[in-house]
Every structure is written in C-alpha cells, then in structure tokens.
C-alpha cells in the first residue's frame, strides 16, 4: 500500500502545474504599452513593482494590478527596458521598442490622405488602426507562444534529470577507477 502511494506521489509530481520564476510579456500598441507578468505556473504577479527605463534612465514607475498587468503610455519613440520585481526576490527584465507616438500619429493623419483603390479616402491614422486590428489575433498568438516557451517543458525536465543522474553516475565511475588503482 505504502509502495503504491509513494509511486503515485512520484508519478503525480511531473503532472502538476509548474512554478517558479516570473516572466514579463509586453504588448505595444501605438504608444500604449501593456506589461503582463506571470509566475511560470501562470499565477499573475499581483502588485509587482514595474520600472521602465529608457537609455538606462528610469522614466516611469508603477505596480501591476490583480491580473498582473500594467499599462502606460510611452513618452517617446525608442527602445525601452522594463524591470518587474515581485515578492520574495523575484525579478525579470524585458525590452521593447516604441515605433510611434500618438502626437506624431495625429500630425501624419492631418497632413496626408491616402488614396485607396476604391477611391475611398482614409487617413494614415485610420489605416494604421485597421492594420493593428487585423494583426491583433496574430500578436496575441505570439504572446501566447512566448508565454508557453517561458515555462519549463517536459524535454527540459527529463533532460535535467538525465544530466543530474549522469553527473553522479560519472562520479561513481571515477571513484571506482580510483578504488581499483589503490
């Protein structure tokens, strides 16, 4: 009976949900940036401290909400770095680029009207918006893939066990050879 229980416990272990690092995922839409942060088992990081850096300088600070999300407007174009700090010594970094800002967006919209084939005039702002809408499912899918990749997968788990057993197995071999020589 106890043997069965022990075996059961051991086989159940790899099936359970996975933990323990945090990851940050970033979705940039225009100049609106959404940071969502999770533990590797999918628990959102609640009330995690978010720090946004541009060229090494802190430009923004905030906290994640109960869904692990934090949304802000990027002040300028360019490359940014986000650091998320969660309780008990967890920390992660992510980088993202903001290609456009709202201000510029509006200017372009006023200046030029793009002629589409049907003769219907739409502004570049509208065009960008339409493209953004169209790409939304793809972007969400990409985020999902990124999230999935950040979790430990079975290959890594089994690989790790193999490495550990291999290292100690090698140590047994070495110590045996030493023993034979003496």
């Amino acid at each position, binding site marked *: 009976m106890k043997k069965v229980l022990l075996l059961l416990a051991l086989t159940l272990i790899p099936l359970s949900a996975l933990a323990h690092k945090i990851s940050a995922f970033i979705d940039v839409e225009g100049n609106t940036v959404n940071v969502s942060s999770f533990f590797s088992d999918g628990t959102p990081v*609640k009330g995690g401290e978010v720090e946004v850096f541009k060229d090494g300088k802190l430009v923004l600070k905030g906290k994640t909400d109960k869904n692990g999300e934090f949304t802000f407007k990027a002040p300028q174009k360019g490359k940014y770095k986000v650091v998320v700090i969660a309780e008990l010594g967890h920390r992660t970094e992510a980088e993202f680029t903001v290609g456009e800002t709202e201000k510029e967006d509006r200017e372009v919209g006023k200046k030029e009207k793009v002629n589409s084939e049907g003769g219907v005039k739409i502004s570049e702002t509208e065009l960008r918006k339409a493209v953004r809408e169209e790409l939304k499912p793809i972007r969400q899918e990409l985020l999902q893939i990124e999230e999935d990749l950040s979790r430990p997968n079975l290959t890594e788990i089994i690989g790790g066990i193999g490495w550990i057993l291999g290292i100690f197995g090698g140590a047994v071999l070495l110590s045996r050879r030493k023993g034979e020589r003496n």
Partner: protein
Amino acid sequence: MHISEGVLPGYQLLIGWGLTGIGLFIGLRKVNQGNLPLVALLSSAFFVASLVHLPIGITSVHLLLNGLVGSLLGWAAFPALFVALLFQALLFQFGGITVLGVNTFNMATGAVVAYYLTRPLLRKKTKWSLIAAGVLAAVAGVFTAATLLSVELFLTGSSFRSTAELAFLAHIPVAAVEAVFNSFVFLYLAKNSPKLLEG
C-alpha cells in the same frame, strides 16, 4: 524560493558563494561510492520538486524537499542541491548563475539543520518517531530557507517583517505537504532499507 538574478548586491553574492564553497567542501567528503546513487536520486527529486506548484493565492510557491534531502544525506545535501539548482538555473531560468551560491546556501543550510534535528528520531525507527521526523524535516528545511531568504532581502532594503511574514505564511502549505510526503518516505525506508536512515 529561488532568488532571481539582479536582486542581491555583489557582496551578498560573494558571501553566498563563499559559504556554499565551504558547504561543498565538507559535503563532498561525505560522498562516497556507497551513498552516491542516493545523492543522485535525491538531487533529481529536488530538481523536479521545484516544479510542483501549490496554488495558495497570495504568491506562487512550490515544494522544496530540502528537509528530506538533508535528513537522508546530511552535509552531502550541499553537492546534491548545488547540482539540482545549477540545472534549474540553466534549463528553467529559476534563480540564476550568479545567485547560485546564495540559493544553494539557503536550501542546503535548511537541509543540514533538518539532518541534525531528525537524526535521533530516525534512528529510533518507531512509527511515531518516523512521522515526527518527517514533520520536523519539512518544517526545519522550509522555514530555515525562508528565514535566510528574508534576512537576505532585508539587507537589500525590503522590510524584514513583511517579507518574512509572506515567506512564512506562503510556505506553511508547502511544509504541510512535505511533512506528509516525508513521513511516507521514512516509513517506507524503515521497512525496506533501514540502513538509509542511519546516516
């Protein structure tokens, strides 16, 4: 309970590596041909245990099993946990390479504390002493690690009380699950390979 890369200042990382180095030195002398397979087995058990997450709402915690590893291996828990944490850092990005010293020290110190506390109980080998040892190993392993973590984070400027409270509260369910698990393991070993409990 893996501290991430970039949280602790350099001096703590160095001290962590130093202390882990001492632990590894003592531990490796306790490893011999006889107990190597057990070291390997428990090392991989610890490696996998960190993937078992307990849903408790406030934060995300996982099993540690450092108490179990310690009570069966003693100081040899240092090399066992070091190797397991190394591969968790490399493969899962749990913790990291520079903080490996500190993380190993936190976990393995809990293991060694569990070893000294449970040794007399494990030698008795009565049913209740084994169960008591299982509970004690879990509590000692988990809460020693939680205390060390709180002290280290306190030194980086976070409030000791709130960190320690969270670390302790969040790990009560972990200790409870491990207490049951350890007791089963000890009872099973007492029946099938009692020599393992005499280390």
